[in-house]
């Protein structure tokens, strides 16, 4: 058995520290992908058990039971029901938490009924003494017919024990914990007779769940064993009661709890954090702090990245042999890569804050605080998580709307989330704000630029709420409203978990969006440096003739600048920009900005990169190295600045509202399963964007 691999599936309720256990087992040996056809994140990591033995560990989405109520939970049950799946586990590791053992064991007993070898991990065992909990592990192992590892993923205790148990999985009992069929013996006996070769509990899951099973003919089973929805639910309740009876009996023998040690920290924190005044106050202070620090902290690394790539481009230009290839590198590829990397600081900080809020357990309190208010707008308290995540990126945000149980609330959340200021808008905002808002501080510490940014965030949030309100009135959908939010214990976020999360999200964003940005940069460079032969090819001749005709004196440098600007105007991109100029002129944009707006339809952040490419094509002087300086130097024919207040505000508003992101449209299509919603989104948002930008420019100019 040299170099063999054991397939392990990690399963557990949310908030049990399952991801911490996964991170401890696998370290940074993780791969994140998607399940085919759906956007549920699939995390696989590898773990060395001994010299010749490896484990491939699959971190399944958190679920409370095998009765799935979301796409994420479906993944778990579909995998466990399909023995032919390539990821079907040799052994399942169920992660539970010592303080919630009773509830966590419900899922454990269900998995045991599938007769798969199962290991029980009891996490957070370092808190046992504090909480006055005592466990009789041998007794529990006997009753639950399993092996137990007492673990503290936080203190790195017991991880080796899990590895040992995984390596020795073949000695685990496959016997179920209890006999679920006693809830309706007659019904289950019939089922057993009809399908003698199938596991009874598996059949029962097929009947009650709305998932696909490849190897069982679902229709056949359902037709002959149909029960009404209410009857099935009643049986499921009966099943749950049976399971809890078994768990209570087991815990009576194997667990002692000293009731005097109640959780006072939690109670005290809850009293403050969910207080009707302090709760909101704290929430807004936290949000304000996050946005101020994102703008302040990331400006240093961003300036550094910006100037580094400007230097790199001019270095490449002067040191490589002149020619088409050098131009491609210095004017297309290097600015393109710079345009991607410049996001990293802001995205990393945003994901850092969001994962700290989620890890600490605070996010659930926000959900609790905000539910009633959000419901007025047709949203749910749970919409707060997508709306806040939307400040990083609409794509994961829209996916996180999945745990909203009510379809109408979920749909509205999906539709309005793209209004939230995402990190792709930040570079656009950042550069425009720095061009039109002076670098001053009011009251000594609030930066005026930061304040403007905060206003733009509020504007996005307001637009989201307003459209949610309208949608709530317009949409005629009747769905039952279910809202169940677990309020987990407060925890100090683990650096490792937060770090890995930030790293993963940033990587996914940079590589996902990066491909589009880089490709567009190269295409734009090509379109900007090539054109129809008539005008473009004879540019130097035409310009020289024009100047000669005027009989002016000019320096060689002046001639060169005139030629390159003539070239840009007559390049392919110039032609595109000029042809849309009538539409965008009322908004205060010239044809160069027009090109940037059009090309940033794929992704907003392309705007800055496009302008960088366009202006670097147009300008040759070295002192105008950074994008900001180049933009500042741009003037109209009459010498007035192009990026003045009116144009700047108009652009800010346009980017605040417009649906300029192909990836978001794609994800909305996926999540709503129709083209109808993304198209409505596109026209609605772009319409608002055009009208507000128009109004702002006409008013301010």
């Amino acid at each position, binding site marked *: 058995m040299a170099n063999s691999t054991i397939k392990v599936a990690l399963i557990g309720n949310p908030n049990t520290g399952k991801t911490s256990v996964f991170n401890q087992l696998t370290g940074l040996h993780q791969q994140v992908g998607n399940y085919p056809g759906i956007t549920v994140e699939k995390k696989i990591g590898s773990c060395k058990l001994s010299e010749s033995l490896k484990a491939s560990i699959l971190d399944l989405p958190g679920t409370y039971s095998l009765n799935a109520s979301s796409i994420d939970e479906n993944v778990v049950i579909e995998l466990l029901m399909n023995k032919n799946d390539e990821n079907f586990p040799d052994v399942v590791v169920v992660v539970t938490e010592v303080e919630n053992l009773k509830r966590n064991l419900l899922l454990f007993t269900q998995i045991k009924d599938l007769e798969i070898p199962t290991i029980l991990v009891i996490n957070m065992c370092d808190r046992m003494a504090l909480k006055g909990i005592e466990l009789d592990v041998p007794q529990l192992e006997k009753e639950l017919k399993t092996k137990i590892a007492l673990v503290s993923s936080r203190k790195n205790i017991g991880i080796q024990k899990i590895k040992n148990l995984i390596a020795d999985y073949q000695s685990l009992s496959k016997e179920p914990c209890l006999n679920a069929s006693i809830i309706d013996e007659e019904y289950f006996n019939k089922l057993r007779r009809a399908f003698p070769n199938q596991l009874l509990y598996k059949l029962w899951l097929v009947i009650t769940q709305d998932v696909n099973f490849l190897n069982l003919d679902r229709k056949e089973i359902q037709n002959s064993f149909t029960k009404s929805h209410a009857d099935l639910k009643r049986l499921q309740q009966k099943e749950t009661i049976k399971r809890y009876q078994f768990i209570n009996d087991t815990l009576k023998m194997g667990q002692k709890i000293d009731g005097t040690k109640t959780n006072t920290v939690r109670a005290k924190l809850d009293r403050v954090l969910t207080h009707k005044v302090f709760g909101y106050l704290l929430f807004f202070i936290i949000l304000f702090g996050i946005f101020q620090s994102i703008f302040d902290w990331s400006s240093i690394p961003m300036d550094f990245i910006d100037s580094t790539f400007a230097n790199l481009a001019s270095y490449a230009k002067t040191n490589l042999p002149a020619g088409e290839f050098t131009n491609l590198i210095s004017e297309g590829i290097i600015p393109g890569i710079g345009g991607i990397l410049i996001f990293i600081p802001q995205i990393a900080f945003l994901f850092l804050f969001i994962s700290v809020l989620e890890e600490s357990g605070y996010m659930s309190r926000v959900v609790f605080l905000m*539910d009633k208010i959000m419901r007025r707008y047709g949203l749910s308290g749970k919409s707060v998580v997508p709306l806040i995540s939307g400040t990083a990126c609409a794509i994961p945000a829209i996916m996180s709307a999945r745990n909203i149980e009510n379809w109408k609330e979920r749909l509205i959340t999906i539709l309005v989330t793209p209004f939230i200021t995402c990190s792709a808008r930040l570079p656009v905002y950042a550069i425009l704000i720095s061009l039109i808002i002076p670098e001053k501080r009011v009251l000594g510490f609030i930066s005026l630029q930061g304040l403007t940014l905060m206003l733009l965030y509020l504007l996005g949030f307001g637009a989201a709420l307003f459209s949610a309100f309208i949608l709530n009135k317009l949409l005629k959908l009747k769905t039952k409203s279910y809202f169940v939010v677990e309020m987990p214990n407060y925890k100090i976020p683990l650096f490792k978990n937060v770090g890995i999360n930030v790293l993963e999200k940033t990587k996914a964003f940079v590589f996902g969006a990066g491909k589009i940005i880089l490709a567009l940069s190269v295409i734009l460079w090509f379109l900007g440096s090539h054109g129809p032969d008539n005008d473009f090819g004879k540019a130097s001749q035409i310009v020289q003739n024009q100047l000669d005709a005027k009989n002016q004196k000019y320096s060689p440098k002046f001639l060169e600048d005139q030629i390159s600007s003539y070239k840009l105007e007559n390049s392919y991109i110039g032609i595109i920009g000029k042809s849309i100029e009538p539409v965008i002129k009322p908004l205060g944009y010239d044809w160069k900005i027009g090109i940037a707006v059009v090309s940033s339809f794929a992704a907003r952040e392309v705007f800055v990169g496009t302008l960088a490419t366009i202006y670097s094509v147009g300008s040759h002087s070295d002192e105008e190295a950074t994008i900001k300086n180049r933009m500042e130097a741009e003037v109209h024919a009459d010498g007035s600045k192009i990026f003045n207040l009116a144009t700047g505000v108009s652009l800010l508003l346009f980017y605040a509202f417009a649906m300029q992101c192909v990836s978001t449209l794609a994800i909305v299509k996926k999540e709503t399963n129709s083209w109808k919603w993304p198209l409505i989104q596109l026209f609605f948002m772009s319409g608002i964007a055009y009208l507000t930008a128009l109004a702002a420019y006409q008013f301010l100019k």
Partner: protein
Amino acid sequence: MKTTLSHLKIGQSGIISDVNIEEIPLKLIEMGCLPGNYVELIQIAPFGDPLYFNINDSHVAIRLETAKEIEVTL
């Protein structure tokens, strides 16, 4: 005395005596919202909704409309 979860005061506790199975999500039942189990109201959100309970040692927030469907003996 019997009442529904929606009528509890903060800090008040009781034993669940009946749940309206048709109106209660299965998830809540699986978290331990079953007849015979202990329940305590921990906090009421501003504006009176949702409610934050300790149900059978699970800490969950549910909306008023759901709490109305769960009967409790004080």
